[in-house]
């Protein structure tokens, strides 16, 4: 049984998430808190495997709570659940020792996968985290990615690439471009073929290193 704690000041989000988690097999919500201080107090008396932690909370916010958990409860794993999708925020929290980072808009399946992945392997890396970490490394010049020398991307492909870099979904890109999601997928596959990138994170790094996109 995976024992979970949930820390979020927004009652509606906490309630919604707790209801989802209660349905998951092999998972039990043992602690629900509205801020970091309540969580830290609860961790002293309740055995918890994974904390789902919001960032913006009163009294003690998620970042400070993260630091204290690493110091006081190093065995507890933490998945950040936030509405912040900026690379610097994601990188900073991962650097503090978060085991995963997810947006609050994540699909239920992804939340399930993240919890099981962190319980089994100790971490969960999705596209957003990969991209943030790669951005950090590229900025620090610790990695210099190489890509295929390619035909120039078409105007439509560039539009799709920008959308991917902004972490828009296929449906959102399609809506912006007034085309179908299938057409967006077609362009995306062409870009992957042309660049040799393997996923959205690779495309984002490609776009930045080639000066096609600036975050």
């Amino acid at each position, binding site marked *: 049984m995976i024992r979970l704690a949930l820390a979020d000041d927004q009652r509606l989000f906490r309630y919604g998430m707790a209801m989802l988690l209660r349905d998951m097999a092999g998972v039990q919500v043992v602690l629900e808190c509205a801020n970091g201080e309540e969580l830290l107090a609860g961790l002293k008396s309740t055995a918890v495997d994974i904390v789902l932690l919001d960032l913006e909370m009163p009294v003690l916010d998620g970042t400070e709570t993260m630091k204290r958990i690493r110091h006081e409860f190093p065995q507890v794993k933490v998945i950040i659940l936030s509405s912040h999708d900026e690379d610097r925020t994601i990188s900073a929290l991962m650097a503090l020792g978060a085991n995963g980072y997810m947006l609050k808009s994540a*699909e239920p399946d992804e939340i399930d996968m993240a919890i099981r992945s962190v319980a089994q392997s100790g971490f969960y890396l999705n596209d957003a985290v990969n991209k943030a970490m790669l951005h950090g490394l590229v900025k620090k010049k610790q990695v210099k990615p190489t890509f295929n020398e390619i035909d120039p991307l078409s105007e439509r492909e560039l539009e799709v690439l920008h959308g991917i870099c902004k972490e828009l979904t296929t449906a959102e890109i399609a809506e912006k471009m007034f085309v179908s999601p299938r057409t967006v997928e077609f362009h995306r596959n062409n870009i992957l073929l042309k660049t040799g990138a393997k996923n959205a994170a690779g495309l984002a790094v490609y776009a930045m290193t080639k000066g096609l996109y600036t975050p």
Partner: protein
Amino acid sequence: MHIDLAYLERLYKGDRSRMEQWVRIYLEDAPAQFRSLAECVQRGDDQGLAATAHELRPLAHYLGSTHLLELLERVSNEARGSGAAACVGAMDELIALGTRVEAELKALFDIP
């Protein structure tokens, strides 16, 4: 319609009673949240307005309200960039939309 409850349906595997429980809490909490945004504008609290609008985005996602999401992003960005006073227009739109969303939810779940 200003809402699309497809995400909420996926979240609760189509369990209508759970969706209704969530909606009832939304209807209890949402007016205070919108009031809090309006108070930030009145106080000229740029940071507070930006942060509160940003924090409400996941709820707009739960409700599948693209327009609500866009308005919250607009308020959040304008509060950061130009200050709370610049958000009066967007806030009026937001409050009006919030009222329509509440009415639609009540009608959908037959809540008086």
